[in-house]
């Protein structure tokens, strides 16, 4: 026997020695309890006693009503405070709209201010340019600070000017930033961050957005992203710093973050919509709240992992406390912080798409509308646009995090250092000038038309392509339905429905016992107590049935994800060529809006749990693939070589060495898979279900916010229970393997 395989065996026997006695007794007790339930139904409770139910739902709903109508803080009505916040946030959103796609007289005014500053600084001093600029922009300042009290004659100046400009035909000046300029700008950013490859990716993506007539909607979505990202990042950093400074803050905030990240996107909308006015602002606030925790986490991580020597050297140079934070600790954690930004951007973007339900314009709204009209082709084009934007945002922020400091900056001239910026400014000015004659420079045309001698020829029309895709999907459905339907019926009748009925039939003490046993065995007392209190929360509030339906759906989906995902991950780890194909597919699956899977799933499988499971899998499977792949790739080379040297076959090596070593990592993948499947239940609710996800979605439209918040919390509770148990198991296993 080799060291490596012996090691593998040793672990197995080790575990085999301990586990049966514990698990055999758990299993026996469970079985006896279930048997007892069959023989004498009604003795073990299958529901919490109604007279002991805690009316959490009514309590929450009345609390929210109270907050909305009566609550006051220091004599100011709570409602007025949320209103004021909402009003204050409207301004930046509006300005982002002006700049990105709407255009406004104030933009022309700012352009003129910039030109003026340029001219004055050329003929006079920088200081005078500054003064001229401030004076020139004063109408906009006045309008803001004085509001309606500002003299009309001054505040209306920009508007008067826009009328004048219209007359002389320079309408372009107060239009939004032309799409050509934004596209070139993104490509330049790509080049600055990641060289030609990234520049090409960015450029092609921009061309896609323009060609498929989704530019304006992308910009609508981006208005919320550009406002939300800095806010979320700022709040995240501040909270992160606070946590590292105060033990009390750490104790309060850390579990709140755990919870926040386990709650599905959709569940954020109801409470925010309840407290704030419906509309883009609600979407913005929900987005900021949702996207902020990763930034805080990364800040904490960055600050806690700064090497002691760096802090010491800062102290020796006489840094004050705040200098040591801002000039030493934070800069040295730049990479982790940038990863935080990356997370914020990705989460923001994902959330904005979903927030269309609560009043955000843009890609998400268009997508839902297309699906509503059964325009699947258009929906797919929009879905690809969403993926494309997400991937560009991801690569740009990640690339920036990895970017190394330019150590030769000092030797380069000013122009060399800022060449990307200079080129962008030139393009910006040129496109604004071009926009006077060519409107297509500002917003891309809806289809490519070539006007030649023989008249107009349509070169490319995204609608035609969309219709063609529609036809394709319908044709496939028509032909495949007869083959797929019997499978669907069989699985539904013989597998899904029996399993669901089992979960609904099972007395709750049995469920609590099994979960508690696992928690106790792997996590000890603290995990057991946590799991018990989380389970109690949904049992005593009367959500047992909905929670069990969710549990059943998620368990089955997770099982299938593992059955499909793990082999794919193994294959990818074996073959680099396959990995090269699979990894971009994973990227796309994870960024592609999951709404789109719903419609084909319904067409093929009809409304029912089969369609629900099918719609969950593509999204939730990705972590199962990724963690398996990474787990296998991270196995130390020596271990693999030892196995080879001992003459194991490929399969022996996989089963006896590689998989046992990689299994903790794979289990963490399962953990993520469960989290994602839980989040997806809020989306499959749109197919038609009666579980927690449905409660979350329905609460938005029925305004039963208490119910929605509770259902969201219980989804999170299930996620946390799974996370703690599986996480503890993986940690223990890693320790046994000596790799933890």
């Amino acid at each position, binding site marked *: 026997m080799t060291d490596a395989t012996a090691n593998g065996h040793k672990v197995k026997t080790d575990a085999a020695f301990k586990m049966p006695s514990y698990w055999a007794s758990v299993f026996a007790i469970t079985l006896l309890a279930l048997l007892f339930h069959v023989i004498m139904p009604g003795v073990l409770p299958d529901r919490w006693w109604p007279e002991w139910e805690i009316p959490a739902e009514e309590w929450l709903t009345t609390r929210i009503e109270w907050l909305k109508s009566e609550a006051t803080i220091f004599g100011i009505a709570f409602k007025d405070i949320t209103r004021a916040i909402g009003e204050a946030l409207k301004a930046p959103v509006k300005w982002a709209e002006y700049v990105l796609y709407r255009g406004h007289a104030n933009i022309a005014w700012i352009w003129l201010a910039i030109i003026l500053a340029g001219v004055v600084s050329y003929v006079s001093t920088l200081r005078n340019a500054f003064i001229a600029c401030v004076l020139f922009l004063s109408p906009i*300042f006045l309008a803001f600070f004085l509001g309606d009290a500002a003299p009309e004659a001054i*505040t209306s100046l920009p508007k008067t000017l826009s009328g004048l400009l219209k007359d002389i035909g320079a309408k372009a000046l107060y239009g939004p930033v032309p799409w050509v300029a934004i596209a070139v700008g993104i490509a330049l950013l790509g080049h600055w961050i990641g060289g030609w490859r990234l520049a090409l990716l960015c450029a092609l993506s921009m061309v896609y957005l323009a060609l498929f007539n989704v530019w304006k909607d992308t910009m609508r979505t981006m208005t919320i992203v550009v406002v939300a990202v800095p806010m979320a990042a700022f709040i995240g950093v501040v909270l992160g710093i606070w946590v590292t400074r105060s033990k009390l803050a750490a104790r309060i905030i850390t579990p709140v973050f755990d919870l926040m990240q386990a709650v599905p996107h959709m569940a954020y909308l109801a409470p925010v919509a309840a407290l704030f006015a419906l*509309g883009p602002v609600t979407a913005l606030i929900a987005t900021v709240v949702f996207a902020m925790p990763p930034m805080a986490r990364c800040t904490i991580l960055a600050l806690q992992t700064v090497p002691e020597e760096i802090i010491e050297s800062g102290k020796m140079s006489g840094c004050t406390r705040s200098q040591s934070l801002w000039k030493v600790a934070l800069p040295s954690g730049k990479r982790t912080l940038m990863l935080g930004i990356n997370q914020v951007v990705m989460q923001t973007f994902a959330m904005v798409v979903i927030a269309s339900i609560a009043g955000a314009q843009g890609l998400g709204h268009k997508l839902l509308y297309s699906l509503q009209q059964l325009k699947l082709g258009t929906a797919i084009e929009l879905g690809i646009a969403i993926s494309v934007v997400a991937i560009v945002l991801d690569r740009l922020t990640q690339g920036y995090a990895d970017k190394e400091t330019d150590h030769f900056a000092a030797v380069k001239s000013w122009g060399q250092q800022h060449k990307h910026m200079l080129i962008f400014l030139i393009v910006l000015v040129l496109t604004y000038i071009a926009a006077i004659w060519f409107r297509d420079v500002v917003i891309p045309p809806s289809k490519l038309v070539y006007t030649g001698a023989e008249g107009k020829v349509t070169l490319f029309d995204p609608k035609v392509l969309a219709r063609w895709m529609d036809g394709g999907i319908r044709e496939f459905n028509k032909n495949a339905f007869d083959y797929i339907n019997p499978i669907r019926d069989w699985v539904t009748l013989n597998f899904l429905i029996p399993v669901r009925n089992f979960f609904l039939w099972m007395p709750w003490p049995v469920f609590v016992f099994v979960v508690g046993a696992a928690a106790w065995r792997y996590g000890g007392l603290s995990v057991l107590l946590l799991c018990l209190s989380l389970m109690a929360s949904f049992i005593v509030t009367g959500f047992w049935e909905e929670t069990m339906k969710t549990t059943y759906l998620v368990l089955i989906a997770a099982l299938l994800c593992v059955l499909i995902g793990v082999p794919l991950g193994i294959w990818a780890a074996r073959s680099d060529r396959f990995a090269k194909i699979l990894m971009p597919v994973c990227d796309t699956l994870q960024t592609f809006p999951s709404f789109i899977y719903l419609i084909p799933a319904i067409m093929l499988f009809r409304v029912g749990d089969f369609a629900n499971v099918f719609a969950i899998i593509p999204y939730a499977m990705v972590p199962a693939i990724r963690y398996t792949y990474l787990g296998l790739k991270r196995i130390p080379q020596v271990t693999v070589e030892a196995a080879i040297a001992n003459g194991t076959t490929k399969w022996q090596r996989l089963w006896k060495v590689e998989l046992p070593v990689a299994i903790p990592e794979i289990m963490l993948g399962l953990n993520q898979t469960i989290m994602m499947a839980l989040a997806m239940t809020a989306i499959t609710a749109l197919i038609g279900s009666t579980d927690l996800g449905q409660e979350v979605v329905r609460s938005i439209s029925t305004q039963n916010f208490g119910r929605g918040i509770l259902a969201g919390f219980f989804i999170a509770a299930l996620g946390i229970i799974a996370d703690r148990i599986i996480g503890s198991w993986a940690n223990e296993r890693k320790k046994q393997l000596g790799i933890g």
Partner: protein
Amino acid sequence: MKNVIKGIAAAAVIAMPVAAFAEAESDDPIIIVQNNWTSQLVLSYVVGKVLEEKGYTVEYAPSDSQLQFQAIADGDMHFQVEAWEGSMKSAFEKAVENGMIDAGTHSALTREEWWIPNYVLETCPGAGSWQGLDRCAEQFATAETKPKGRFVGPPADWGKNYADRIDALEMNFEAINVGQAATLWAELQSAYDRKEPIVLFNWTPNFIESKFEGQFVDFPAPSAACNEVKEWGPNPNATGDCGAPHSGWLKKAAWSGLAEKYPGAWSVMQNVDFSNSQIAAAALLVDVDGMEPEEAAEKWIEDNADVVASW
């Protein structure tokens, strides 16, 4: 040159906080609610464009069809052009109690009822009425509902309980509720392509009539007595044994402050009136001719210049 660039940069820096917070528009926009079905989108743009023509600033805000009314009552949104009796009645009336204004009823009549594609009549000739449909219930069965037929019902939160009606009429059907309207259409499209019997919830006017041929199933005509008196209707032992109204209202909803803040716009909104054929024509431009809702609105205004002028 360097000075110029610095000057420009300085200007940009000064302008930035301005760009982030200033608001120079003196006339506040009128916010029109948009939902996610075609006719509503086109009609919203029609009203919006008419108001813009008159010099108002108009903004559109997408919203959920139930949440919108509270938002209108609160003044967060200002006008909704399509409020349906069948699916929005309770939310509408609740919001009116909270201060939302009922801005009048369109000429268009709405109906929401069980609906079958015409090809169903080939295999089940009596399907036009509920008794005839019930006789071939098994044709509509799926694996889960067997031997009962499957009725694809509206989302549970639309406030219609078809399970109760099925019970009251002792029909051999089971209602399976979908999660959103798109699910209904996906079911219909899939069945329609394969000429498979299906009975589902549908309403008029919407884009379905321009794409699929079919008809509503006739139920006993509704009346107040139906819901109160057990003896009334085909089943002497149950209330609720009747169909939905054949001619439901289609209303407009408005914020209470409109009349004071924008009197001109308010009078237009009160006058706005669409008929069934006008709504169908508007939806057709998008669903069949493939226009964007906004283009369709422009075309509709062009085609109905006299109607628009009368507002």
